[in-house]
């Protein structure tokens, strides 16, 4: 009935993502892995910005913290990747929770500025705490091995990233269509009304910052393993702009939109890599077009034209699914 529903389209994309790598060359696999990592970043950021409405600019820093923590725990403390990676994600989450504390008092531009300042401070630490972070030159991470599994590192890392992305995509989808997701949207749409209904602003803002920090931390750990290298410039302001454009192009307040946005932006950036200079122009033009003419992002256009892309903020029970239709088809007052 709805062959191009969100579920079907995403499942088709997933099928391609699973089946294609053995036929892809090294570079294509690298870009695909990058897309999957950015999907995580964009979903986390969209929960914070698109759902909870917190205009924060710290996601690039939390991405960096995840990457640095994963790398440094291996290099400085000799931990294995399999311990350092989840630890890095939880460290990024803790940082996210910590920066949510000032966020309760600040909103709009002031929140944007203070989180931007935090991101710059993080850069400074990466650059100047040389005894720990190795400074501007960055550092190499130990080679990752999937032994005893009979799989190469690029392929293994790709499937690990994909599995985590799919899992965390589903987690995010469940989350936004729940009591928690509705509380986040309520905080976004009206703080005073949300409080009058018993929704604790601090709790849900902190939750959004923590979740986005965790997603960014996971992405950071995977990124450090993908590059086998960690350096400060990967987590600068441009990184933040990149992530913000993903959710703007894909659609603010849409988990599926974050996936589309991440895919489009990364593929576009890579496609234009050959034409240095054009990259910035196309990128800037795209942003202007979306901000001016397509506020809801790509996903809002799809929702208007294709059935089955709605993202209700409640769990639609499989047995109760036909219920809305029953109501729609009831004779209206005029017919009775």
């Amino acid at each position, binding site marked *: 009935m709805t062959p191009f529903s969100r579920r079907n389209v995403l499942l088709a994309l997933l099928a391609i993502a699973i089946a294609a790598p053995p036929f892809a060359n090294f570079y294509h696999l690298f870009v695909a892995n990058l897309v999957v990592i950015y999907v995580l970043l964009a979903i986390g950021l969209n929960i914070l910005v698109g759902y909870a409405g917190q205009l924060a600019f710290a996601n690039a820093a939390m991405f960096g913290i995840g990457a640095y923590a994963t790398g440094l725990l291996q290099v400085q403390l000799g931990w294995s990747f399999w311990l350092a990676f989840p630890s890095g994600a939880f460290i990024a989450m803790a940082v996210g929770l910590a920066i949510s504390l000032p966020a309760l008092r600040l909103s709009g531009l002031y929140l944007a500025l203070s989180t931007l300042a935090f991101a710059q401070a993080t850069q400074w630490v990466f650059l100047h705490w040389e005894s720990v972070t190795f400074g501007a030159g960055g550092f190499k991470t130990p080679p990752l091995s999937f032994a005893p599994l009979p799989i190469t590192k690029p392929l293994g890392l790709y499937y690990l990233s994909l599995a985590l992305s799919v899992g965390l995509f589903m*987690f*995010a989808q*469940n*989350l936004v269509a*729940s*009591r*928690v*997701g*509705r*509380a986040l*949207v*309520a905080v*976004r*749409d*009206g703080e*005073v*009304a*949300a*409080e*009058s*209904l*018993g*929704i*604790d*602003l601090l709790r849900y803002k902190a*939750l959004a910052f923590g*979740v986005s920090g965790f997603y960014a931390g996971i992405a950071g750990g995977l990124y450090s393993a993908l590059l086998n290298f960690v350096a400060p410039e990967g987590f600068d302001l441009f990184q933040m702009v990149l992530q913000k454009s993903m959710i703007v192009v894909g659609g603010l*307040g849409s988990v599926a939109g974050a996936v589309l946005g991440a895919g489009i932006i990364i593929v576009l950036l890579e496609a234009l890599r050959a034409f240095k200079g054009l990259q910035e122009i196309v990128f800037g033009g795209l942003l202007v077009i979306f901000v001016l003419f397509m506020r809801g992002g790509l996903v809002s256009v799809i929702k208007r034209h294709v059935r089955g892309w709605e993202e*209700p*903020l*409640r*769990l639609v*029970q499989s047995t*109760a699914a036909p219920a*809305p239709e029953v*109501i*729609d088809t*009831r004779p*209206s007052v005029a017919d009775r």
Partner: protein
Amino acid sequence: MSATLLSVRDVHITFGGVRVLEGIDLDASRGEIRGLIGPNGAGKTTLLNIICGIHRPQKGDVLLDGISIVGRKPSEIARLGLGRTFQASQMFGGMTVLENLIIGLHRRTSSGLLSAGLKLKRHRREEAEMEEAARRALAFVGMSELAERPATALSFGQQRVVEIARTLIGDPMIVLLDEPAVGLSANRLTELDGLLRRIRDQKGVTLILIEHAIRLVMDICDQVTVLSSGRRIADGTPLAIRNDRGVIEAYLGKDLRARHQAS
């Protein structure tokens, strides 16, 4: 369990040197509808904001069911069983009508990050119960057919009613209503009158009603408190208030009082 549910005692508040409320007392008994009236600028909304925790009074106390609630967060006071609606529409624009109602159940439900994200069985059951309760509440206010509409697609009057339903669904002991009749047509006003009575009679909820539509106040309130320039100038039954000299003066001025009494 005393008969008095809400008790405001000698509340004072100033904003930037302006005395907005000076020594206000107000009691509401269980199951009564108490009107709160007064000319513009009398301090009615400020008093509601103090009761629900948005403002903190410099002096005085507010007791809800015997517990002092001054200094608590609005969300905490809401969870104790105090609901409120606002003068301007406060629908959540990014949600459907049904979702707006479901969120009214927030304080009575408990699913957290993990049980929601992992879609645990307990969470699924809770969600199903919430949806059912929300559909029942929509039926209670006669708006079932609007469930799937975006909240912002409703008319102003409809948004008002949904907001009241959203507050009621959380099963509060008391609801503060800030000018629910603003902008309603005569027909809608009659519907609101009936709705407020049903809320009191069927649900036993205490209501505090700020309203300029005097006919509505006189019609449905058990008790009325009148504020003027930050002071309480009268308190009593609608009939007593109607004939109170001070009230008529505050509303109509001295000249018109004579004409009012002559008529």
